[in-house]
């Protein structure tokens, strides 16, 4: 995560309201009106005053219960939904003001999206589905075939390229969806609960596959899930949504250690914190300690045995050869033992 450069997506005070006259309603909306009050007025607040940035190469996971506005927010990023208020900038351009032509151009060159129930075109073969975005931007037949074959190989569907979607299993269909979204080599990759419709076993396999792809491609990713474990496995940062608003947006460690609201605390209650919290966030900068250093990327769970057997009161922590400071044993033990 490189916070120094400009964010890829920058979302400021974004609102999305569904209803008869959303714009007019938003103007009259008083500060701090709750989701329920808005609903009582006959409107639904899909996205409520959301501000967040997505940085280059990071994976932001959006988390929340069903109906909390995750899909709506992501659709605002790609302007599948027109926002009611606020601004959303993608690589510095305000997408709300783009004319249709340029919006299409942006999607054709920069964005890819994967859907929960795949969204495949039933009358097209795997190959034709994957090549679809290339066809739409007018690439010639051979070039798009070659490129489509490349991504089909990448997602491990070689040999199935002449099949129709209904001849494939759910996991395979989602591989087609992933391949299609990657065909144009997008810089920004949106995934809306891509694995939720799959069996748990397949889901796990697809997550591994996805991590492998991400390692290789290093894209900027916005990933939606309602499954906290999935979020923790994948995320650089997690944004937790409730009733259209972002409750907290932070690294997994910070979310479990310092929940910003009661809602987030409840959410993280049952999580095995020792697996989420890493040494680097427990460090007290400036402090020093003696002896063998531990890696900043190690989780408390990884260190559990050492915490109990090692007599030191603090441990030096280094990451990538840089000394970060010292981690007090008590802090780590708190995390390890703070479980109901």
């Amino acid at each position, binding site marked *: 995560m490189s916070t120094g450069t400009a964010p890829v997506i920058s979302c400021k005070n974004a609102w999305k309201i569904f209803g008869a006259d959303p714009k007019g309603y938003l103007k009259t909306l008083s500060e701090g009106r709750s989701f329920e009050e808005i609903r009582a007025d006959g409107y639904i607040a899909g996205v409520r005053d959301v501000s967040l940035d997505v940085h280059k190469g990071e994976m932001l996971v959006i988390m929340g219960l069903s109906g909390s506005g995750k899909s709506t927010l992501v659709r605002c990023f790609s302007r599948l939904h027109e926002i009611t208020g606020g601004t959303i900038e993608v690589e510095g351009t305000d997408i709300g003001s783009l004319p249709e032509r340029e919006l299409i151009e942006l999607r054709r060159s920069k964005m890819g999206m994967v859907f929960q129930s795949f*969204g*495949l075109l*039933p*009358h097209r073969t795997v190959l034709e589905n994957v090549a679809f975005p290339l066809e*739409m931007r007018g690439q010639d037949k051979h070039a798009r075939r070659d490129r489509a074959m490349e991504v089909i190989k990448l997602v491990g569907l070689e040999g199935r390229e002449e099949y129709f979607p209904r001849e494939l299993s759910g996991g395979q269909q989602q591989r087609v969806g992933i391949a299609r979204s990657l065909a144009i080599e997008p810089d920004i990759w949106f995934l809306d609960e891509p694995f939720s419709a799959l069996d748990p076993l397949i889901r796990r396999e697809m997550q591994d596959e996805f991590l492998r792809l991400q390692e290789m491609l290093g894209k900027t990713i916005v990933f939606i899930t309602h499954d906290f474990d999935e979020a923790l496995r994948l995320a650089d940062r997690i944004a937790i949504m409730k009733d259209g608003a972002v409750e907290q947006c932070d690294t997994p460690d910070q979310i479990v250690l310092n929940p910003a609201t009661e809602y987030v605390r409840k959410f993280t209650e049952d999580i095995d914190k020792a697996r989420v919290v890493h040494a680097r966030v427990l460090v007290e900068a400036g402090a020093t300690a003696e002896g063998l250093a531990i890696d900043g990327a190690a989780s408390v769970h990884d260190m559990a045995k050492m915490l109990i057997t090692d007599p030191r009161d603090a441990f030096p922590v280094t990451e990538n050869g840089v000394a970060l400071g010292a981690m007090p044993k008590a802090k780590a033990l708190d995390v390890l033992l703070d479980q109901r």
Partner: protein
Amino acid sequence: MSAADQQSLPSAPPAFGIDRPKAALICFAVAIALTIAQYTGLLPAFLHRLPESLIPPFADWLDVIFEFVKEDLGLLAFTRFLTEGLEWVLDVTGNLLFGRRRWPYLGPIPWSAIAAAVAVLGYWLGGWRMALLAGGTFLWTALVGQWEIAMQTMSVLVVAAPMAFVIGLSLGITAWKYPAFENAIKPILAVLQTLPFFTYLLPAVIFFKVGPTAGAVATVVYAIPPMILMTILGLQKVSPEVVEAGKMSGCTRLQMLRHVYIPSARTEILVGVNQVIMLCLAMVVLTAFIGMPGLGATLLQFMGSFRLGRSFEIGVTIVLIAVALDRMSKAWVAKQPEHFEKGTPWWQQHRYALIGLSAFVLFYVLAQFIPYLNEIGRRQSLSMGREIDGVMRTFLALDWVTAITGGLRAFLNNNVFIPFRNFLLSIPTPALILLIVAFGLWLAGRKQAMLAGLFFSLVALSGWWDRAVITLYSVLAAVILATLIGLPIAILAARNEKSARRVLLACDTAQTFPSFVYLLPAIMLFGITDIAVIFSILIFATVPLVRYTIEGLRTVPPEITEAADMAGATRLQKLLKVQIPLAFPTMAVGFNQAIMFAFFMVIIAAFIGTQDLGQELQRTLAGTNLGTNFVLGICVSLMALSFDLIIMKWASDRKRVLGLGG
């Protein structure tokens, strides 16, 4: 309306719920009082029937409007221009299919070549059985010597069906894109679907020249509405994720429509195609009434001269063609693309097209040497029409047969039909309108009751009240009889799965028959008499009744019937107390369709000889009296729409109450 309102809607009691039945009762009482007054001679004449002097000359007004549109707005010039283009296309198909002497002077194509190609098409769509049905139909047509007239009919069908498809699809897309347009055409479509077909015919003749062109135009207009409706339905059903996937793939609006929406709505669009084909066939046959040569005209002529054997053979041909077209187009709906392994050579990928083409060419060439494969003249044909004519005639002349049909006829006429008709005619106009309003209030709601009352008042104002009442009488008599006959059949059939499926299949098949064919058995049994009219409507209307009753009974959830069993209900109790009440909304849909079908058939039955609106309508066909033709057609449509509004509203209300889903 807010989401909260929507949630509370189903449970809230309807406004004025209490006094609606009371209002119905009041209307009913007033109607009875008026009728009693009429019988006791106390009713002033102007309350019995609207005085002639009060009837506005709608027909003349309409004529003025038509005249204006036709001449001053240049519509006639425009349609004559269209006629030329259409005529050219029809000449081409006419030349190819039955050798009309026009460009390109190639035809007629040998029957064997067409039959072979169609058989291969059938095989591709549905295996050997479909090949047999498709090829067999065409083989039969040729063998009984009806090839030429069948091809006359087909030459219009192959032009009209694609036209109706394209126009319907475009209008459907427009309506889906612009809800304002959809709202504007929905009522027009409702009227079009209830308008008697004679009302399609006359304008077609006036604007598009007698003969195949007018026939094609009337057919196209008649077949468009379902295509529009199916297109809208299909496009609305495309999953939002597929749409979003299209947008994220960078589709422009046109690309969205062409590559995403239309292919994803394939199933509904193809169901629309199936309906277009079936309606076109039904209508093409009926264009016989404006002198379109073909199967319909020949059937009309044979039936008119009471040559039943030959009529029967043509009836069989029409039915076979209908069933073959229906099954083939339905197989097309169900056909899903299959993938070929990589490296499959192109001739293998297109093998059916190639086999079909080779069969066509093979028989084309063979036919040059073997005349029998080229053309089967009437003399060489295997037609048994003349013999069957004789057999039928002797059969119908047998003493006991005449005794039965004659007796039945006399009994029904004297004791049921004529008294019923006279009774309906004796009801004062305002009383009948009030009865309809009461019916609407009782079953549906204020809005439906008001509309129905308004519609019937318009019929009264049209000046054709007596004719309309006779039409209504035929419809009601036939539908009541159809209910008496159809319900027991359906209830028996629904008792077990196997028989239910068999009867449903029979009904589905019967519904594909062009309506005209239903006249045949009626005429065979009862000759050209008024009983035959009722009888033909009766069979036509029984089909949907049986079908929907079975469907309604079958969809009663098993938990509920099991609960009834556990409660110790007898079979009859279970049927009366549980199954029928739950199936009633669905049955009502069937009942409604029976009435719609009856309104349709009663007009066709004018051919046999009636004294109703249909008869008058048929009479207008001979002239250029567009205004009268329209007024008559709208009268039929308004009566049918009244029933449609009331019954469908009741059925959907009832379904909601029973929690069976909208």
